[in-house]
């Protein structure tokens, strides 16, 4: 008699490119991996609003201001879609948010860097959203249905984020000498952290192989990073800016850019909480949560009152 265990059957199902849906049987580690990944992704969207919000009130024109407001609002929406996707796996929203606020949960390290000048808003849209898009386009084909659907929504909204960023860079690069220097300075500071967004190299990335097997991830960190570099270098050339990497060189044979070593020590330091803004970001999130408490309480009180009134009316 042939026995096939649940794990094997699940792997076969995933291998046949079918989507896993909330109530399906799934291996516990698959569920746990997804909850961790989706909630970290959600936290990143939420914390990601902070560096950009820093410039909303100082945007140089109304056109830039409405665009930035809309972008930051989108990121809040992305966080919400993702928390909802995590909930379909049985995670509790308040636990997830609690873990972010207590500092237990991780979010993308990139948001622990400061936004010093207006050009940083351009660089973030162009590079940080650009890198996020590379990852999210891949995740549209992830094996977990609700995650894949959230990604499709998110990707539709992201393309404006990157374009508004590149447009800011373009205006600065076509402006005065000082403006172009601002743009170059922003590129210098955001380039390497953007490359780190794809995570450790394939050799160092311990969980990657299992995630690829389960088709949660469809491309490796190094593959995505290379794709991003190949796409971005010509965009920098168009701006007339220099990528801060003396080793950067097009390999004619492969058609891919070779690039210099990434400072992984910096990556792990920021991840551990020692980045320039880790503390500030967590404080800002906690303050926002606490300051909003009265609104939630008022909404609760109002909901209760409305329900009571309805009860009185139908009783009468």
């Amino acid at each position: 008699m042939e026995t096939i265990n649940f794990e094997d059957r699940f792997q076969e199902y995933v291998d046949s490119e079918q989507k896993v849906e909330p109530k399906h049987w799934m291996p516990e580690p698959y569920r746990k991996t997804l909850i961790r990944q989706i909630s970290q992704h959600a936290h990143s969207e939420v914390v990601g609003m902070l560096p950009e919000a820093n410039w909303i009130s100082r945007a140089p024109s109304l056109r830039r201001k409405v665009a930035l407001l809309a972008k930051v609002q989108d990121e809040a929406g992305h966080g919400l879609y993702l928390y909802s996707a995590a909930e379909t796996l049985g995670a509790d929203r308040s636990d997830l948010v609690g873990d972010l606020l207590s500092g237990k949960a991780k979010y993308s390290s990139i948001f622990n860097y400061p936004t010093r000048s207006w050009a940083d808003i351009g660089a973030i849209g162009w590079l940080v959203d650009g890198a996020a898009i590379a990852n999210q386009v891949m995740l549209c084909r992830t094996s977990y249905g609700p995650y894949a659907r959230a990604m499709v929504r998110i990707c539709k909204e992201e393309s404006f984020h990157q374009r508004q960023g590149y447009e800011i860079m373009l205006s600065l690069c076509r402006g005065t000498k000082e403006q172009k220097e601002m743009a170059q300075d922003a590129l210098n500071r955001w380039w390497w952290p953007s490359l780190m967004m794809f995570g450790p190299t394939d050799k160092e990335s311990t969980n990657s192989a299992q995630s690829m097997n389960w088709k949660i991830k469809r491309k490796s960190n190094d593959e995505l990073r290379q794709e991003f570099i190949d796409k971005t270098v010509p965009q920098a050339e168009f701006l007339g800016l220099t990528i801060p990497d003396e080793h950067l060189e097009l390999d004619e044979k492969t058609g891919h850019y070779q690039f210099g070593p990434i400072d992984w020590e910096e990556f792990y330091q920021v991840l551990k909480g020692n980045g320039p803004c880790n503390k500030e970001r967590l404080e800002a999130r906690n303050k926002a949560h606490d300051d909003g408490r009265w609104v939630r309480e008022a909404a609760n009180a109002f909901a209760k009152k409305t329900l009571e009134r309805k009860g009185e009316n139908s009783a009468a």
Partner: protein
Amino acid sequence: MSDTDNWKIWEVFVRSKNGLSHKHVGSLHAPDAEVALKNARDVYTRRSEGNSVWVVPSEAITASAPEEKEALFTPADDKVYRHPTFYEIPDDVGHI
């Protein structure tokens, strides 16, 4: 966390334009239906995705279990006579 932070879940359905059905787009948390509707507007229709929204408490939905899939849906698989192509009509008859 306090119950202030733990509102119930609502499923959101959006009609993208008149003539089409409402389609499930996701979920959200809200203390009551009215706030759920307002949140749904902000979260799921920021780009004219629809002209009508439904919100339904998740707990009000009864779903079939994946294990019941065969019992529920395979009986339809062998009833080919429910499809027009099952019936043989000569081409000469024209469109029918």
